[in-house]
């Protein structure tokens, strides 16, 4: 029993210990560079593997929800399907349209993947396992997230095709509109934690009272913030039900219509990696990062809890994709500007009131009312505005 108690903290820090051991072979001058390269390689390997697993899980999950099997031919239960997909996309011919702008056409997927991978630098994957502990970590994450929109525009414009341009304009409009509720929903956590550093935010949530953890999602403003953040994250990642810019039945494939082969695979990779990064930030801000859900489970290694929560959120994304129909463009915009933006502002006020009221049931009652009542009011307001008007798009004439 004592042997087990000795091994458990070692197991928790096993990657940190392994990294230190590997770096001890380097001279002292090269160690920061070696540490950076090691962390980057670990992140790319871990999350690319998770991407491959997710593509398979998504196809099988969606298949089961639609009352059919997913892919089950390649390998046992279709486990080697991602491998087959990778080989297929690598061996397909890379077609670039004649009128396309070659340099920008080439740079767009590279910029997208780079921007999406940069966000992982500030996510704490386990205890002491963050790549860079920046003082303004959350701000860095949102800054590199905004690079994605430029990559989307580059992809859509450089293809010189009407479908691509229309898809790119829709995608950018959607991403910009949902970026505001995304940032505002995370401000409540920053207000409570008093810091923009992700490590500080997770450490604040890693304590327990009894067996219940101090995660921010277990407060009224935290729950509302988490729900709003996840809705905005779904829209930022262009996933169903917000996938009008890339809807297959609407505009072929939107801004990556004219991409084939490996560049298409890079767009696919970038979209999923962005989804994982935003889910990782949601876990860090609201769900307590690497901390265990109950205090008696704290002996399980911290990185296991991070990936367990990440897989749960991915399962929720797949579930929502299989369940809800696609939103129309004006419904999407109305949701962003007329429901989510006022809700996030009310949430910020609620979090402020929570901070200054003394603890107890009155605080819970007041804050819960302040979160639920505007939600009902704004939702009923959205339902009443059902007039259909002529939609004019001025982007591509």
């Amino acid at each position, binding site marked *: 029993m004592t042997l087990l108690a000795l091994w458990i903290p070692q197991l928790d820090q096993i990657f940190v210990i392994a990294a230190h051991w590997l770096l001890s072979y380097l001279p002292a001058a090269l160690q920061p560079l070696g540490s950076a390269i090691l962390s980057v390689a670990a992140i790319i390997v871990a999350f690319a593997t998770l991407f491959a697993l997710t593509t398979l899980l998504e196809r099988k999950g969606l298949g089961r929800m639609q009352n059919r099997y997913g892919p089950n031919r390649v390998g046992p239960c279709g486990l080697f399907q991602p491998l087959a997909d990778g080989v297929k996309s690598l061996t397909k011919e890379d077609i670039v349209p004649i009128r396309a702008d070659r340099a920008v056409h080439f740079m767009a997927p590279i910029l997208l993947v780079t921007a999406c991978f940069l966000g992982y630098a500030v996510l704490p994957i386990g205890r002491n396992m963050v790549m860079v502990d920046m003082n*303004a970590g959350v701000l860095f994450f949102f800054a590199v997230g905004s690079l994605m929109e*430029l990559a989307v525009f580059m992809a859509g414009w450089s293809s010189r095709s009407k479908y691509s341009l229309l898809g790119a304009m829709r995608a*950018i409009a959607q991403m910009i509109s949902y970026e505001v509720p995304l940032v505002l929903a995370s401000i409540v956590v920053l207000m409570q934690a008093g810091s923009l550093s992700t490590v500080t935010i997770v450490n604040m949530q890693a304590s327990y009272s009894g067996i219940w953890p101090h995660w921010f999602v277990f407060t009224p403003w935290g729950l509302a913030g988490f729900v709003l953040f996840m809705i905005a994250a779904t829209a930022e990642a262009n996933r169903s039900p917000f996938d009008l810019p890339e809807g297959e039945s609407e505009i072929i494939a939107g801004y990556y219509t004219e991409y084939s082969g490996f560049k298409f695979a890079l767009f696919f990779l970038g979209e999923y990696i962005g989804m994982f990064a935003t889910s990782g930030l949601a876990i860090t801000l609201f769900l307590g990062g690497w901390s265990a859900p109950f205090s008696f489970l704290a002996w399980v290694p911290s990185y296991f809890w991070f990936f367990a929560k990440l897989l749960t959120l991915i399962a929720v994304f797949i579930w929502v994709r299989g369940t809800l129909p696609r939103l129309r463009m004006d419904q999407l915009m109305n949701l962003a500007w007329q429901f989510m933006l006022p809700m996030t502002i009310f949430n910020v006020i609620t979090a402020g009131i929570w901070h200054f009221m003394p603890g107890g049931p009155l605080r819970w009652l007041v804050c819960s009312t302040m979160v639920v009542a505007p939600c009902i009011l704004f939702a009923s307001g959205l339902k009443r505005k059902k007039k259909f008007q002529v939609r004019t798009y001025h982007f591509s004439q």
Partner: protein
Amino acid sequence: MTASFILLAVLTVAGTAAAMSMRNAVHCVLALTLGLTSVAMLYLQLGAQFVGFTQILVYVGAVAILAVFAVMMTHNDKPMDLPDSHSAWIAGCIVAAAVFAVLARAIVSSAPTVQAQPQPAATVQQVGDALMHRFVLPLEIMGLLLTAALIGAVVIAMDRREEMK
């Protein structure tokens, strides 16, 4: 004059020079994005983390996107056929070169009174503290200004033809 400063300076000058001299307006905006990102990296190298990330968030994430939307909506995304008239171009460059010469002479000939000091700390807490205490009045005025700019931009750019239907 470390290697990283030289690299970032070259990137900045190359990006901005390309932004001001390319024929296609969308290429100009994309080159501007490169230049502004390297300026943000210069801010990070100087130790101003908050300003660097704000620069990327605001300029690359908002102003550049706005500029490309404006380019698309004014149908400027084709390369411009007519060349700029040469006399105006040469005169403009001479004026800019003269301004640079004056500024560079002033900088290089000034006595170096700066002593080497360790990196000053500018944590987000200190920035927030300064914003809430010493700079609270400019902060509130900035809020008013941004609200006015938001409403004004929407009103000016709104399509009046919809009102006539």
